[in-house]
Every structure is written in C-alpha cells, then in structure tokens.
C-alpha cells in the first residue's frame, strides 16, 4: 500500500522543561543549548553476553550501535555525550569488547566530553575513559538512568518506551520518546534492544497519563502521536 511520503522538513522540536531538544530517528536526543547528544540504553555487548550459555548470537551489535553514534555525532556536531545508563548490557561487557570496538570507544572519549551514567545493568565505574557517575545535574535538569517520580525535570532511560498506534483497525509499534511535565523517558538506543509499551504498568508511577506526550520514531521522521490512538500490545 502506498503512503504519502513525508517531505523532508525542518526537524521536529521537543520542548521539555523549557528547554528545546531535537529528537533524532536513531533514538538520540540532541540538546542544542549544551551542544550535547543524549542517548540511553546502548546495551553494548548484549549479543555476546549469551555466549556463556552457548547461545551464539551475531557479535556485531556493539559495532552497529557505535556506528549509529558516530553518525549522530558527526551529523549534529555535538561535542558532549551523555549516555544515560545501561551503556553495557552487563559490567563484564567492558572486558569483552572486540579490538576495533574498543578502539572506537577510545577515540570517542578522547574527542568528546563523554559521561557514562550508571545503569542497573552496568552499575560499576570502568576505565574506558570519559566520566562515570550515578547521575548528573545539568542546567536545571537531572539526567539519570531510572525514572524517579520524586525527581522533577528528569531525563531518564531504563524503560525502553514503545508505542502501539492503532487507527482504523491497522496498527504499528514503534520505539518512542515519552514525556510529561516532569519527566522525559528516552527510547533505547542499542540495536539489540526491544521496547516496552508506554501503557504498561511500569510507566504508571513515573508518567502522568493526563499530560503524557508521545513522539514515535517513524521510518523517515518523528511523529507526535495523539494519545487516544495508543493501544496495548
């Protein structure tokens, strides 16, 4: 079935906590005021983490995720990177990196102002370069891994938000940015990650359904979606 192709247009802006952001198709969020790129849940070395149980998944996800990052960095011209936790699928991931992936990360942390925020999958600090911290306060915003109802003006990851949109009996499921007045939850960035419907109970304590907004990631552009079209599943 044919679909009217979205014409290239000026990038969609996302206003949160009085700051202007640009959500990217990759799932990253560009913050022009800080010239920073925000990413969440890279889950590097996820595929290889299954090898010890002798499930041999293609060990290319780290390379693919880093390549996405490289592209975003060069396209936005960002000079800072905030990685909002679960950057590695597990702490040991920092030791299983393949040589070329390790080299690229070394290059990244040398060129950019890089912050690794700790996540539940990768709670420990590591020595790959850049700064490791639990969370970071930046220009009135709190950057953390897990969304926390007690923190206002928070940008977090952890939940891998996704939206199922149904119109006239047809539906599609996409990763999405979801935010209300207090909190913005980023989609997961790693190529080996799936997503969780924003209508699931996990979002309830941290996302106010009344003023929740969803920016779904389409093929060629980001779509702000009316919440009445969101369905479970």
């Amino acid at each position: 079935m044919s679909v009217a192709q979205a014409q290239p247009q000026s990038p969609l802006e996302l206003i949160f906590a009085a700051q202007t952001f640009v959500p990217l198709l990759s799932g990253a969020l560009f913050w022009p005021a800080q010239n920073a790129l925000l990413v969440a849940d890279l889950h590097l070395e996820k595929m290889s983490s299954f090898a010890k149980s002798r499930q041999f998944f293609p060990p290319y996800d780290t390379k693919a995720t880093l390549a996405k990052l490289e592209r975003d960095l060069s396209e936005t011209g960002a000079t800072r990177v905030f990685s909002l936790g679960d950057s590695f699928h597990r702490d040991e991931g920092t030791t299983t990196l393949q040589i070329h992936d390790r080299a690229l990360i070394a290059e990244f942390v040398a060129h950019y102002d890089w912050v690794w925020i700790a996540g539940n999958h990768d709670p420990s600090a590591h020595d790959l370069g850049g700064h490791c911290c639990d969370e970071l306060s930046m220009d009135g915003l709190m950057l953390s891994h897990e969304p926390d109802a007690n923190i206002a003006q928070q940008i977090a990851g952890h939940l891998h938000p996704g939206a199922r949109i149904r119109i006239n009996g047809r539906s599609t499921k996409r990763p999405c940015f979801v935010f209300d007045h207090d909190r913005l939850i980023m989609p997961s960035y790693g190529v080996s990650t799936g997503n969780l419907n924003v209508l699931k109970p996990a979002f309830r304590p941290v996302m106010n359904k009344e003023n929740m907004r969803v920016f779904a990631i389409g093929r060629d552009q980001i779509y702000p979606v009316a919440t009445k079209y969101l369905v479970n599943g």
Partner: protein
Amino acid sequence: MTKTTRNHSDSFQPSPDLFSQSWGMPAVVRDWFLARHWTPRPHQLDMLEADRAGKSALLIAPTGAGKTLSGFLPSICELANTPHEGLHTLYISPLKALAVDVARNLVNPIEEMGLDVRVETRTGDTPSSRRQRQRFDPPSILMTTPEQLALMLSHAEAPKLFGTLRRVVLDELHALALSKRGDLLSLGLARLGTMCPDLKVSALSATVAHPEILRDWIAAPCPARDVAMVSQTGGASPELSILASDDRVPWAGHSAQYAVPELLDIIQQNGTSLLFVNTRSQAEMLFQSLWELNEDSLPIALHHGSLDVEQRRKVEAAMVAGKLRAVVCTSTLDLGIDWGDVDLVMQIGAPKGSSRLLQRIGRANHRLDEPSRAILVPANRFEVLECEAAVDAAEEGAQDSEDPQPGGLDVLAQHVLGMACSAPLDADAQFDETIRAWPYRDLTRELFDRVLEFVATGGYALKAYERYARLRKTADGTWRISHPKIAQQYRLNVGTIVEEPMLKVRLVRSKAHKRGATTGPIGRGGRMLGEMEEYFLSQLMPGDTFLFGGEIVAFEAIRDNEAYVSRSYHNNPKIPSYMGGKFPLSTYLAERVRGTLADPTSWKKLPDQVREWLSLQRDVSKLPGKESLLVETFPKADKYFIVCYPFEGRLAHQTLGMLLTRRLERDRAKPLGFVASEYALAIWCALDVGQMFKSGRLSLDELFSEDMLGDDLEDWLDESSLMRRTFRNCAIISGLIERRHPGKEKTGRQMTMSSDLIYNVLYEHEPDHILMQATRRDAARGLLDIERLGHCLKRIKRHIIHQNLDRISPLAVPVMLEIGKEPIFGEGRESVLVEAAEELMREAAGE
C-alpha cells in the same frame, strides 16, 4: 490391522480357492487368514514378493486399502519364521496419534496368531521411564515419529539399539517427505543405513503426482538396495458432487453461510458426516451457524488444532463410539487415523488443491469397494469454478505436484549436533552419510563444513566464541561436545515444527465493560478453552468479541501466559479472526479455473447464476484468457482502480500488490492501497491510471515485467515480515535460539533474544551467514508464492490485455467486496503514524 478394525472383512476378498496356496507365508500367518476366510490382496502379496527378492518397497495406495497391513506383513512373516533378538521393525508416522492407532490395530492380529512379538509406541506422550527402558530393552516392533527417531539416534547406545533393525516402515510418506520433517527423517534414515546396511524400507503413500521422487527418497539411504514399486489401484471411484443451492451463492466471503440450512438437511439424511474447512476460524464460524439452526439438536462437534487436547480427545472418542452425526474439522483430521465410519465428506469452501481433496475424500468410507461420497460446498462464485475444476481433477485422479527443495541447512545443523551428542563425529564420514539423505544429495562439502562451524561456534566471520564452543575438534580429528549439558539442550530443541507463540485461552467471569469501570479483579480459575496465536490476541482491546471454541467470547486481558476471555452475549463477533486462506490455490487447479473461464462452451456445467455472471462479464468487458492476463481499469468513488486476475492465490497476489504499488509510486501514479483475493488483485490510485495506460504514459508491459522480482523484491523481502518469520524458524530449528517451552518462560532462567533483532544485525553485518543463507533457501520453499508469481509473470509477458471501463466489471465485484474486510498491507505501516500525527495537528489547530 487395516485402519478399520471393524471392517476387516471388507479389506479382503473371499477367495474361491482358499486352501490352494500358501501365499509364501509361514503357516501361522496363512492360517490366520484362512480362519477368517480372507485372502490377501494382490498388493499385499506384492509387498511380500518384493521382500523375498531383497528389495525395499514403495506402496502407493488410496486410504483404506489395507495399506498398513501391507507394510507390516513382511515383518510379521519374518518374525513368525525366525525369533529375533532386539528391535526388528521401526514404524514412523507423521502423527503420534496415528502411531498409537496403528499399534492398537497391529496388536490384535499378532495376539491372534499367537506370536511372541512385542509392539510398543514411543511418542512425546510416552512416560520417560518407558522411553528409558525402550532404549535398553526394545520391543520387536516400535511405532514412533521422526522427532523420536532423532532423539533415539542422539544417544550413545543408538548403534546397539538399531544394530538389530531389519526394516523401517514409513507411513503416509507423502505427508512427510517434502517438508523439513522429511529432511530430518531422511538424515535419520541415512544414519540407520550406516548402522545397519541390510536395512529394508517399506514406504506407504497416498497417490502422488511423482511417485519416482518418493522411490528415490527411500532408495538413497541404502543405495545397494532396489526399490519395488507396488501400487494398489482400482476400488470404486468417488462419488463427487457440488452443492446446488437454491440460495444465491454470494459474491465474496469464505463462510458458506448461505448453505447452512442445506448442510443441516444433508447431515440429517446421512449417518456420520465430516465437514472439512480450510482454517480454524472458518471451522468456528461454521460450527456456530450450524448450531444456530440446529433445532433437532443433532450431535455436531468441532475439532481443530487449537482446541484443548482434552476437548479434542472427547470429540474423537464420541466419534469412534458412533455418537456424533457430524464433525466440523480442519486438516487435523486429514491424515489416516480411524475415527470410525464416515458416510459422507463435505468440503466447505474450495479445496484449493486436488490432492488434498482426494485425501479428504478418502476419509469417507474405509471400505474399498464402495465409492466414497463427497459434496463440495463453494463459499463464493469464484469457488464454484474452483470446485468444478477440483471435481474434474479428482475424477481423473489428477494430482497437484510439488517440487522438491534441497534439504534445510537448519535441519542439518540440528542433526549434526545430535550426531555429535551420540558419538564423536568424524566430519568426512558424516558428510558421506549426509549426502546419502536424498534431500541433501547435492550438498557441497564447503556448505557442510560451514554448517559444522555454525554448530560449533556460531559460524561467524569473527572468532568471538571459540572459548565457549559447543563442539571442539579433538586430537584424533573428531568433533566432540564440550559439555554434557549440550546434549540436554539439544534434546529440548529437537524437531522441525515451530509453532507460532500461543497463549492459553481461559474462560473467566466478565468484569463488565462499563464506562469508567476499568479496574476491579477479573474472575480467575475458569475453564481452559484452548490456545490461540499470541499475535492475534495481543491486538485486542478489552471488550473486543471474537469466536473461539464455538462460542462468541469477549477479550478481557492477558495475564502471564494466558488470555482471559468471558462469555459474550453479542450475536456478531466484532473482530473477524479470519486471517486468509491457509492453503494457496494449487497451480494445477488455478490453470483449470482459467481454462473454464476462457472457454464459454464449458460453462454448461455451471449453475445458472454463475453462468449469467460470466456472460455479463463477457458482454461488458472481457474474459480472462487461459494464458494471458486481463487488466481492467475503472473509476469508482473518486478513486481509480486497477483490477487484474492472475489466479495465483492470495499470497502471490499480496506480493504482486506490494511490488506493483512500489512501481506505481515511482511512476507517480499515486497508488493508495490494494487488496488481494485468491483470484484477483485490486489496486486503487488517486490518478486516472486507465488513462495513463491508454495514453502510453504508463506501460502495462513494463509495470508487470519480470524484473520486479529482482531488486524490488529483494528490497521488499528483506524488510518483510515473511523473511523475519522464516528466519525465526530457521534460528529455532538450527538451535541458535532456544525453543520456548510452555511453562518455562516464567522461570526467567535465561532471557531470550528477539529473533528480529538478530536478523537485523546479521542482515546488516553478515548477510552471507549460513543462517541467512538457510533463510533465503527456505524462502524458495516457504514462499512458493513468489516462485509462482515468477512463473505467472513469465507466462503473461506481452500477453496483457487492458480493458478500460467506465465502471466496475462483474468479475471485479468479488475482490472489490474484500476491501475493508481484509487488513491492508502497508510498508512498515507508516501511514498509521502519518494519520495519527495529522489528527494531532488538526486538534492542535483547533479544528
């Protein structure tokens, strides 16, 4: 003995010279025949003869011809002559129920002959203690399935267990051979052939178009042995008719609703009827409407694969006991299990293939000398044509043919691991053995080695997983499993049947869908209705109604691995669960249908209303030709339609629709959508495409040119869900992804990885990986529709006939009625997002 114990006497003809010959049987067996005044049938004697000549044998016979006895007779004679230590005969059937049924029917005669021959079954349902015992103390005759054979072969004591084996009996081989299960079985046979070079194979098959393929298939594992072809012909030809309804046959649809009163009458007038439909949801719908009108409360039951096992067993028991008048069923009843006397088979909706029809007809009446009776009930007007073609084909005994495909690499991977579990694996010997399996006869050593690498460490270009290897090459050059756990993992993963993820469906008390009443507990602990595909259930909203287990139920919620539904009092289910035909129209029938359409002199056999419909088409437009493609264009409701009639089945048409809309878009004809039926494809555009064709701005020949199957297809395939599903199956069969075992999901002992994500990563970074190769090879098998589309495009090249009309044509009506009923396919379904976003923009603008 034969499949119908009750009808023994019907399977054997009394002979005038009863005592004149021994038929080459041991006395005890001959006497058993004589005591019953029976004479062996010629094909049964032929099987014995083949055995005496040291040959394997392939018996081609219709259902109910004493086929099973024929397979076992040589073994019984041999066992009666000479006592045998250990396993003598291995019987393999595609269904475990069939194995159990045949065992039951074999035990009686063996006891009556007073032979000391132990017959046992081994299926997934056999208690593990008995399975364990069977490995060390096997019966003389063991009835089992291809999966159980694979399991037995993976144990270290396999050579001892099978070393004494003399014969393998393969039942219903036509249902197995050309599938992945057949691949697995062929590899198992090749291993048996290595372990016991004297092995003979007796294969039993229904009538097929190319028996020589089956002959080669069974000959391959024991190349030194000839195969005798035995056929059992004759018997009364079936009595076939098409329901001539007083009501109008509808233009479209699949439920044959119009015929329900007549169906009830027919059920009333006959003893026991089987009503075959093509999909589960059709079965549900038909069952529901029969009961709505069933004023006499005739015992009519429902049988399909999604129903709870216990419910199915109840129906089967009632059927055997002769308590039922009719069963509405799907292909779960296709194969030759004996459910008792069936007087009449009705096929509701078109049979889609002549072979399937013939096998289904075979279910009516196991007595060879009486004709089987079957009535075909077309659900719409095109199906009238298809039913006519099927009846003609069945009367001629014409069969659909299926092209054999090379053996699956995923199946080979599974088998290689199993062989390494049983004993250290020598790659050279394993390769030699593998190419003795018929589907793998052309396998290259290079490909085999890559499969071995895949099993050992995942087969990636990067040697990332050496330290975790499943198989390691040892100093003596053999490959050994690196840990006993690997054998356990293998055994959990055996088999080639990958089910759609299913959820159990449980009936609970409704929490009432009142406005605002969104909370409150759902009643628990209701009756289990059966299982249903997760993807269907996950799209439902609470309160949505659909048909299941013969009743209309309302969806409540999904909890853990169960879907909760409540009883609904709505008359019409809101969500049609009809997901399209399960079987595409066979090429063979399609050709016949096209032939009928193109030849008005053949219309006299058609019902009046159908003939009038076709005549009208001839008058206002054109008739599709036998070898050409008719393309009609016409405007309707400010859209412009292109309707074409390839008759290649819904799947092929969907693919064609997808590819054509891509091209039309590139040609700026602004296509808006399409819908496909079994017979036709309709595409609608915002621009007057009819005019564009006429003026030459668009060329039909170019639009339909074969090269759409090149790049356009590749692009689309790689993104398509078909490819992803094929990959998922390959990943599971090959052991890359562990199978989901019911009940194990909750233990969370191992997070599983989504196969879609793995596919994406491989596609991007190692597109030539062995599993991607397996997926593409499978596409040739699983996506036969694409091959068909290729043949179709080749056939119609430069034979496209354009008819520009000012309004819809009679022939176009059925497919146009499908619009809105069928889910419309979108590329990545972006339109959903566009609409949702536009709506938001309008809201924002205060409209």
